[in-house]
């Protein structure tokens, strides 16, 4: 009996599912979007429209057909560009995004947006009101990289790279490979928002500029922009940026150049690994930050004829490298004090370690920041000398 009922129910339910499927089919509900109807956006730029003071939004849309063509053939219509920079204006970012549909006919699809570039004048006005859309829109991803253009974002996006087909992808690649020099740093939307939300910490973002060389426009990275709250107040140059990254422990690789004071010539080292540890200490109302850095490097180049692969030379060079690092850190620190922007996040560290004292410090953090002492303890080890034991120079005569 029960078995029969069960079988019956099976039939019933399978039919029910079928019926529902049919009904859905009939009602034609779907909500899907065909891939042909999408304008795939891979990069966005936000500028200030000079005439109206509104937002000038640039969206870089991929032209799929051009992408497929091999660069050799080149034929067919169009200028061979695989991207299209569409602009729209409006009083809010979202409004301008929708404004763009007047030109594209299709809705912008921003899930694959890799970079967001803000113009410099916008950045110095404050980014708070522009950034919301990029965090809120469901298609936006928190991994999108944020950059500040030296001039206008539109110009950066127009500069066509030589090897890559898409400028935005090129920029994203540039930023992601910051580790070669550690002269700038990758900041994504989540990191930026995280800094914005913080009471004390100042957000930073990489700066990107365009260098003109005749007809050729090239993009280069030129350090980091420093924000106070949400307004851009200054910049860190390359060495200062690396000083900052030393403290944060984000240095991946790079070149350490030391020169010998008495002799001529220089030695260049590749940074292999860097670790850092920051311990905040509050001693009778005075804040001391102990920064401990351990780095490893390898000798990559030397311009002197001297044999550097000796224990004494190693020790000397290790000390010299530590000094270089210290100088970089101090440069960054001085700059941040000058701008009064806590780019290191020292305030956060104190909040986490000494949360009860933080409450009293919080309100006067700007003044206190100027009085912080930085105590560095840097240790560098040279790991190897690569392919050479000695430089390719004439043998010195033994005494």
């Amino acid at each position: 009996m029960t078995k029969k009922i069960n079988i019956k129910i099976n039939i019933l339910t399978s039919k029910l599912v079928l019926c529902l499927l049919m009904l859905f089919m009939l009602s034609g509900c779907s909500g899907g979007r065909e891939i042909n109807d999408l304008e795939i956006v891979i990069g966005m730029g936000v500028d200030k429209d000079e005439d109206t003071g509104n937002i000038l939004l640039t969206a870089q849309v991929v032209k799929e057909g051009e992408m497929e063509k091999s660069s050799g053939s080149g034929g067919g219509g169009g200028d061979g560009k695989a991207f299209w920079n569409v602009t729209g204006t409006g009083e809010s970012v979202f409004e301008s995004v929708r404004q763009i549909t007047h030109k594209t006919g299709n809705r912008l699809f921003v899930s694959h947006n890799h970079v967001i570039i803000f113009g410099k004048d916008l950045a110095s006005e404050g980014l708070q009101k522009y950034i919301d859309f990029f965090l809120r829109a469901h298609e936006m991803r928190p991994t999108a990289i944020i950059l500040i253009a030296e001039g206008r974002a539109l110009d950066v996006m127009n500069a066509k790279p030589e090897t890559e087909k898409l400028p935005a992808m090129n920029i994203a690649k540039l930023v992601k490979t910051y580790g070669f020099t550690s002269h700038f740093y990758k900041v994504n939307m989540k990191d930026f928002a995280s800094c914005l939300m913080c009471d004390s910490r100042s957000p930073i973002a990489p700066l990107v500029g365009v260098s003109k060389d005749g007809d050729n426009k090239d993009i280069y990275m030129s350090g980091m922009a420093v924000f106070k709250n949400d307004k851009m107040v200054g910049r860190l140059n390359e060495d200062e940026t690396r000083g900052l990254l030393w403290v944060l422990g984000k240095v991946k690789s790079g070149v350490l150049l030391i020169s010998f004071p008495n002799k001529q010539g220089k030695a260049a080292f590749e940074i292999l690994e860097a670790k850092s540890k920051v311990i905040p200490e509050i001693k009778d109302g005075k804040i001391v930050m102990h920064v401990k850095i351990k780095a490893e490097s390898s000798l990559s180049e030397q311009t002197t004829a001297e044999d550097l692969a000796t224990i004494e030379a190693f020790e000397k060079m290790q000390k010299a490298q530590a000094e270089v690092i210290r100088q970089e850190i101090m440069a960054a620190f001085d700059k941040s004090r000058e701008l009064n922007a806590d780019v290191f996040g020292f305030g956060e560290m104190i909040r986490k370690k000494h949360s009860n004292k933080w409450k009293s410090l919080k309100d006067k953090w700007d003044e206190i920041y100027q009085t912080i002492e930085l105590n560095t303890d840097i240790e560098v080890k040279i790991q190897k000398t690569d392919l050479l034991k000695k430089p390719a120079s004439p043998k010195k005569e033994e005494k």
Partner: protein
Amino acid sequence: MRIEKGNICNMQLLFLITGFVQSSISLIDFTVVITEHQTWMVILAGLVIATPFILSYVALAKRFPGMNLIQINDAVYGRFLGKVISVYYIFFLMMTLSFNILDVGELYATFLMPDTPFIYLLIFFTATCAYAVTKGLEVLARVSHLFVVVGIIVPVSTFLLLIDQMDFSNFLPFFELPLIRVFHGIHIMLSIPFGETIVFLMIMGSVNKTEGMVKNTLTGLLIGTSSLLIAAVRNTAVLGNTEAIWTSPSFQSTRLIDIGTVLTRMDFLIGIAQTVLIFFKCSLFFYALAVAVSQLFGLKSYLPLVLPLAGIEVIIAATVFQSPVDHAAITQDAGIIYSVPLMFVIPPLSLLIAKICGLPKPERGKGV
């Protein structure tokens, strides 16, 4: 007279409970707004506080072997009061079921398929749940371990993929939030994953052996809670102070996965896990609801009621809240307050009364 004849074994009870607790993985997002980086603490505290109550459910089920909640209510509180309490429970089941259905709808409407009409998703989802319920508890219990596997693999794998983006100093300082917020968070935790295990009183009657039930329940709770913990720790460690601003921290944190530019866009994992787990939870709730209603009315089978109940649930889910903001606000407030007696007062009370009066007496236990 019990309605469902299928039996489940102790091992399956363990998996059912684990899966049930794991399925609240999306609901920790409610708590995050309130407790921020202390969420993991709140989860643990919730577990510790909830355990004695859950044990009281088990004790109740053991005392009344083979009976479900509605029958226990009848036996302990008598015909009339028992019925009133049962109606209260049924209201709770209906509401919680509709919230869970709504959760799936919101999940898809916000993240995965924003262009698809909301109501279709709800209908689709509820129909599939109804299908599961018509298959009966036995089938659901038999497949429960597969859901548990999903509930473990997804948090663990996303945790591992995100490990290089984690900053464990985000958990500092340990005690920062005002106590009332921590208490509020613990209350949500108590109600949503743990207190809701009250539905197992509808199911434990079907467990074929009562010995070992305590052990299995506790193990299930522990495994489930550890999944929740992994997810909470992942979110806090990855997102840091931004955790509280996102609609769904779990989604945002997995969206950050970027390993070698190949392993990106892993948020579909979270989508799948949450859909599948909430499906599991909804099916259990739906089953409990259908059995409870038909038991209340004294029907022979719960099957005829499944489809109309599904219809009611869809409409409730679609209309009960005006927006996700409403949803979050009311769930965090009245939503967890009204169910306190159901979870933390009535079951221990029933147990007490049963102890005092020596229930269950053979045949028709008298009222108080």
